[in-house]
């Protein structure tokens, strides 16, 4: 039921923003199908009435005042960027 074809893998790869060559598509389809077969086993579990468990932290998320607590660290924020200009991150042109 969960066998992935090359077209599906191509779509997943694009959603993941990972460039995959034609040759790699076949191998990936095999690997991902194998993993999906493995997780398929869950379908047999009766989860009637079970609430999804998103976090084991038995906490109410804490709130704090909405105020600026740090800042003035432009140099630090930009320190590891591959390309910067005038205090900004630089990316390829996105608007024609």
């Amino acid at each position, binding site marked *: 039921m969960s066998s992935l074809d090359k077209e599906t893998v191509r779509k997943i790869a694009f959603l993941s*923003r990972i460039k995959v060559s034609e040759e790699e598509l076949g191998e990936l389809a095999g690997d991902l199908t194998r993993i*999906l077969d493995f997780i398929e*086993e869950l379908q047999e579990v009766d*989860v009637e009435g079970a609430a999804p*468990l998103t976090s084991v932290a038995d906490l109410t998320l804490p709130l704090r005042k909405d105020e600026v607590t740090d800042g003035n660290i432009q140099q630090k924020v930009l320190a*590891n*960027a*591959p390309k910067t200009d005038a205090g900004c991150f630089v990316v*390829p042109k996105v608007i024609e």
Partner: protein
Amino acid sequence: MTDLTNLTLADARDGLAKGDYTSVELTEAHIASMAAQRKLNAYITETPEQALEMAKASDTKRAKGEAGKMEGLPIAIKDLFCTENVQTTAASHILEGFIPQYESTVTANLFGNGAVMLGKTNLDEFAMGSSNMTSYYGNVINPWKGKDGKDLVPGGSSGGSAAAVAGRMALAATGTDTGGSIRQPAAYCGIVGLKPTYGRCSRWGVVAFASSLDQAGPMTRTVRDAAIMLGAMAGHDAKDSTSAPMAVPDFEAALSGDIRGMKIGIPKEYRVDGMPDEIARLWDDGVAMLRDAGADVVDITLPHTKYALPTYYIVAPAEASSNLARYDGVRFGQRVMEDGDSLDDMYMKTRAAGFGKEVQRRIMIGTYVLSAGYYDAYYNKALKVRRRIYEDFANAFGTVDAVLTPTAPSAAFAVGENSDDPVKMYLNDVFTVPASLAGLPGLSVPTGLSDNGLPLGLQLIGKPFDEETVIRIGGVLETAAGFDAKPAGLEG
């Protein structure tokens, strides 16, 4: 190897306090050991100059009578913790050259308590793996050798940390554990590994893999050392919203040696088909040791155990696919693009070149199970089964104080084994993943050797925020087992 690298954290702490040696001397001994064992590839980045500076400062601090809990003790840091001004790679090419501008909370706590950093240890890329073979910086070799002398994996993902501690290249090391990444390598390398309760240690500044599972913990040579180090790492942190606002107990004080009347559960579901005799024997021996010490050992059931691994391999990749979206070649890390490339081209080339195969597979599986049309069938279903697994433990802890299981289904395997099939590798975590999904503390203690002469570990799982009980029982197990074997070349 010198006597100084063979010390436990506790002994080194006491020796420093008595003035038997200085932190600089301790640190120099470890720097020499690191240099002598570089072929094991335990470290990605060694920081000897910084270590000596920290050691000098520590000796000065001590002279003024201001010693912290880990004052002057040289340790290794898994290269998943952001360390200010020291390269942090997560063992990925995509973060090669990344120099954090801030310090993770856990390392800040350790250094605030006086610990000295020797360097950043190797791991599976983004902590995704059980063998250290997915590191971009080469695999780590286990200091232990079997009878055939083959190079073995140290386990993973905290394999460099485990190898460094077992190989006397650090007195102790930090690890992180998402599905077994502290406990399994600890077992493979014959050391102690403690994954605390989710929320005990801050995740702030730790490169994220699966945020609902990731937890930092100590990797040491004794249970007492794990207790000391956890006390210096843990604590509430306002910068991590899942960090528990709880006081940090004196974990070392839990080592009373007395477990009389404690109830310890043996889950029948962990006796999996095809369990090797040597693992079954190790487990039986552990049961006998705890009984001899006066504990009440009882059979329990954790009925959803067999669904833990498939659940984990949906939840963890789903969270990873979101967390790793940040590696886009814009704000930090590597960027790959050619003239005329669009933004999407840049993203796709950067991520194809920057991530290794296992990381790419997990991102894609995570993307798939979260995508429209599959979210309910896979991701939401997995979260519901996770609830069942959590309830299994809650029910068991209604009657028992802790659970005893093997840590891993085998001893360390040879470099290159289990690589042909991703699922085969996943099976290494069969005994560690359930406690991760339930957020429970898990402690691996070395208690015996395999037929091939390799270390094997037993795991104690405790109630939420009851590390003290697992430490207490772990201490008894450690004493009873008397595990004193050392890797080849380090005997005597």
